[in-house]
């Protein structure tokens, strides 16, 4: 037994391959046999993974969900930003450059619209919950954009660490919400073509949420959503601590 633990401990990434493989195998089977393919197996797998991430957080109390349990630590390597971005770039091989170029303007409009919608509604909710200073309002609004824009903005403006933690929490909730609700609402909101996926990526922004949500909806749409979503965090980091902060402080005084 001791030897087995040693092997599992040394080969975390390989263990992660096995775990994810088993999970998708089971969820695919469940999707086909029980749900008659009404919900794609990958959507169930992603949702279950979130649930396991929650359980992992409860058991281990760390910051990386299930990956904080030693046996599962390879998951944070496989699901880390390097592999995530690399695999997202690889999805471009199935995309059409022509379509991307044609939808460029729509992508740009959606990016600006998306950052504004999330920032403004985030600020409004923070206001309702009793925050009144421009720095906190701005940081929480930025957190509603993504969990990277929040701390970057908070750090730049000198927000308190509780507010920064809150903005990260907000961003993670957003990622999870986009992951879960995208496949549910996709048909209703007209998310079915490459062009609309580009607009979707721009509006929603969170690369991980958009990528996971689209993967659960229709894997063919992933590259189109990812190509715009990747600009969102950068653009958010640019405008939230500068232009948006100036606007908010002007509004408050």
């Amino acid at each position, binding site marked *: 037994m001791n030897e087995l633990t040693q092997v599992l401990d040394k080969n975390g990434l390989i263990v992660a*391959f096995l775990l*994810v493989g088993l999970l998708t195998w089971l969820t695919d089977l469940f999707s086909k046999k029980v749900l008659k393919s009404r919900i794609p197996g*990958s959507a169930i*797998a992603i949702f279950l*993974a*979130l*649930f*396991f*991430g929650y359980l*992992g*957080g409860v058991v281990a109390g760390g*910051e*990386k*969900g299930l990956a904080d349990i030693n046996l*599962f630590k390879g998951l944070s390597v496989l*699901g880390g930003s390097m*592999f*995530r*971005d690399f695999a*997202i*770039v*690889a*999805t*471009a*091989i199935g995309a059409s*450059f022509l379509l*991307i170029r*044609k939808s460029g303007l729509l992508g740009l409009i*959606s990016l600006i*619209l*998306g950052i504004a*919608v999330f920032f403004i*509604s985030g600020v409004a909710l923070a206001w309702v*919950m009793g925050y009144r200073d421009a720095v906190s309002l701005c940081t*929480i609004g930025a*957190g509603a954009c993504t969990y990277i824009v929040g701390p*970057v903005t908070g750090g730049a403006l000198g927000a308190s660490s509780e507010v920064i933690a*809150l903005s990260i*929490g*907000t961003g*993670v909730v957003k*990622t*999870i*919400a986009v992951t879960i*609700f995208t496949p549910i609402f996709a048909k209703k*909101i007209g998310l079915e*073509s490459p*062009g*609309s996926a580009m*607009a979707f990526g721009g*509006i929603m922004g969170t690369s*991980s949420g958009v*990528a*996971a949500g689209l993967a659960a909806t229709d894997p063919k749409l*992933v590259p189109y959503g990812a*190509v715009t979503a*990747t600009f969102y*965090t*950068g653009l958010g*980091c640019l405008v939230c601590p500068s232009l948006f902060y100036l606007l908010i402080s002007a509004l408050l005084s």
Partner: protein
Amino acid sequence: MIQGLAILSFSFLLGMWSGELLGSWLGINANVGGVGFAMIFLLLSKEYLSKKGWWKSDLEFGIEFWNKLYIPVVIAMAASLNVKSALSSGTLAILAGIIPVFLAFWVFKILIKNLPSSHE
């Protein structure tokens, strides 16, 4: 196979570098659009090599493998997110994380309706 992987890696690194450069040029400490640039470099490389007649299905296999690995990576990512702290960081985090998403779904629906050109 490995040549295809090399092309993918080359595009990836070049794209990430462009993203970092754009970020520091804009004066922010973040990668701006690195993944997007990388995807465009990959598509351009494919186009260039196909025109030269050097693109082989064997090359594509190395990239296709990573393309297919994408969903498993997302599953692993979901399992290693800090779900618990996100849910326990308070009502505001949950509200500000969910309500804007619904609002954005609605904005998206309106945008798509008014721009029928995207329905191709």
